[in-house]
């Protein structure tokens, strides 16, 4: 009896241990755009009329903006609305998941809007169609004229929920709007939403303006202007329109940028053919010298933690990129490749530096790690420069000029964007020719 029991136990032990749990490692996936269905927002029948637009069409319009935002990322594939089987109002309450799965959608966006007492209330839901459950749901109330921003904020929330990183849709881009023939260009400061809408001009175009940059709260802009033929760095309050010169330098100041906390402006000051980097504290107005070298040091850019500064200098003969501590110590050259490097810009994530490179007459926009390793050239063209990061550090905006003919014909300057993988290069729509873009941080943060 004991023997039988032992054998039984042994057999039991044997069968249990022989089928150990099988583990399979999945280390790769696909990078195909995620198929997403954006159902038009249902307009509540209790909605009042609004003088600026047709309320009935608003649901459709908001969903269209969300779709375009997603398509432009290159990470999503918004499905065509013709294939949608469920009406917006029912889909928003409880979607029939199997119907949406039929058109190969993996995520679904539904929503509802109501205009009452001159207030626009928009709610949306994001559904995971494979798991048949809601992923997120939010509601916003604002003035009806803000409807485009609501669409951008919804896009940001969905993007964040599906990719794990912040979005960049509720943002603006400031740039230099250009018009006229090449030798008599009129340059104005302009600001627009990242999708090209709501363009506003901030200066009249009487003097040349260059390199506008946002401060971290997006309320102030620093730029360089040739006011009265004196090239200097200015500070502009977007809300009030107030302008002032930054610092009392006895010469030309240029290439300004804010520090990450917005309290300082870092810029170049040129005198007697030599230029060095200075900072000015906006509260105390104290000016501090950062570099002191007989070469041309310019294009400074702070790291997001404010501890380091990247800049370009020709101290080694050719223009190259250097990194130093924010007090100017410990200067290290980080680029050693062939060609000339310039306009270093530290990524908001802090892991990469974007730059412009010129080699054999061609211009490249690229990124590298902050120690100069891992250089990747993302795009090449006849002339392009001045990369600026999207707030999440995924996309770069820059400008590209075409080659002009002998009389300056055929010349144009446009804004382009590319993501850091080097794919998804797109032209941004601007009302006029445009250069020197600078991307704001998220407005709704």
């Amino acid at each position, binding site marked *: 009896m004991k023997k039988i029991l032992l054998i039984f136990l042994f057999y039991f032990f044997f069968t249990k241990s022989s089928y*150990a749990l099988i583990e399979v490692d999945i280390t790769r996936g696909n990078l195909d755009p995620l198929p997403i269905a954006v159902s038009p927002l249902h307009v509540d029948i209790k909605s009042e009329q609004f003088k600026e637009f047709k309320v009935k069409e608003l649901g459709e319009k908001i969903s269209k903006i969300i779709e375009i935002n997603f398509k432009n990322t290159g990470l999503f594939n918004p499905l065509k609305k013709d294939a949608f089987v469920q009406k917006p109002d029912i889909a928003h309450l409880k979607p029939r998941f199997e119907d949406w799965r039929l058109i190969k959608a993996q995520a679904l966006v539904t929503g509802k809007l109501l205009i009452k007492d001159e207030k626009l209330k928009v709610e949306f839901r994001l559904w995971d169609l494979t798991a048949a459950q809601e992923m997120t749901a939010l509601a916003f109330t604002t003035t009806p004229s803000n409807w485009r921003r609501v669409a951008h904020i919804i896009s940001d929330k969905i993007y964040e929920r599906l990719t794990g990183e912040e979005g960049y849709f509720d943002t603006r881009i400031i740039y230099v709007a250009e018009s006229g023939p090449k030798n008599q260009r009129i340059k104005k400061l302009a600001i627009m939403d990242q999708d090209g809408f709501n363009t506003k001009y901030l200066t009249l175009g009487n003097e040349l303006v260059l390199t506008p940059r946002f401060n971290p709260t997006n309320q102030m802009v620093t730029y360089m202007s040739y006011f009265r033929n004196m090239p200097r760095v200015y500070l502009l309050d977007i809300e009030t329109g107030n302008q002032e010169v930054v610092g009392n330098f006895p010469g030309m100041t240029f290439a300004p940028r804010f520090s990450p906390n917005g309290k300082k402006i870092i810029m170049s000051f040129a005198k007697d053919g030599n230029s060095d980097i200075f900072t000015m504290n906006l509260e105390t107005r104290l000016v501090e010298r950062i570099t002191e070298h007989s070469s041309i040091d310019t294009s400074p850019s702070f790291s997001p933690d404010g501890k380091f500064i990247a800049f370009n200098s020709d101290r080694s003969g050719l223009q190259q990129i250097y990194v130093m501590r924010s007090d100017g110590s410990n200067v290290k050259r980080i680029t050693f490749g062939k060609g000339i490097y310039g306009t270093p810009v530290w990524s908001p994530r802090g892991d990469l530096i974007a730059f412009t490179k010129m080699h054999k007459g061609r211009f490249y926009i690229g990124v590298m790690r902050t120690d100069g390793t891992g250089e990747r050239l993302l795009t090449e063209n006849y002339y392009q420069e001045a990369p600026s990061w999207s707030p999440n550090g995924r996309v770069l905006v820059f400008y590209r000029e075409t080659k002009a003919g002998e009389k300056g014909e055929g010349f144009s300057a446009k804004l382009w964007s590319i993501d850091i993988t080097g794919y998804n290069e797109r032209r941004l729509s601007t009302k006029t020719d445009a250069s020197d873009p600078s991307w704001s941080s998220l407005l709704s943060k």
Partner: protein
Amino acid sequence: MIKSLIYSISLHSIMILLTVLSLPFMLREPIDLPPIVSVELIQISDKTNIPYAPKARKIIEDTKKKEEERIVSEQAPPAAKAKEKPDRIPLPDEKKEEKKILKKKQNPEEVKPQIRQSSEFEKKEIVDANQIAALIDKAKEVEAIKEKENNKITQSTKKNSFASGLTLSEEDALRAQIFGCWSVPLGLPYDQNLLVRIKLQLKQDGTIMNSEILDHERMNRPGQKFYKVLAESALRAVRLCQPLKVPPTGYDKWKDLQLNFNPTEMLKG
């Protein structure tokens, strides 16, 4: 006079030679190599012991030759192949245990040489099959303990489930199927631990009866928001892929299956 002339000529020629050899412009520019296209070559023949039919063998050998001629495949990192192989050398202590394992017949893949009919081609490998299988088992156990100790994923945690149920080709088929279904979220911080372990209970047709994220509690920890996004994407992949490509036989072996999703390498690359 002649002596000094000879000195002069010889010294001058040395100088010229040194200049020619050391001047930078004399150096050839390095060739601009095109970016490396990674091609994963998986050799299943060593593992699964499937004797090739003469015709198939000829075709395979031909394609191998062709692949060797292509520069691309030469540049492909051989790492993928190496990872699949259990290259662990047993320590003396482990060898003793290994014998015990053989006696207890705990190894399900044990091959009985006297029963099995095989060609000359196979015989060499049969001798070692049990030992290898036992070693893999042992390697797996040790790795499992290590993983419990520090729950960090590294390259070495690549497992070989050949001994425990799926052959390499079966495992590769499953893996390839899930690769296709998994849309990796691109915004993940690749310097963090991105391992998502999903335990599945499968039906016989490969559909999913039950799925469970093993580190579920990590989803709600502060600063781990990305983990939720990642885990959800992995779950979506599994659900999209069903029915999973599982072998037609041996349901008991694979009815419980654990998938370890980790996009770190992919995101870094």
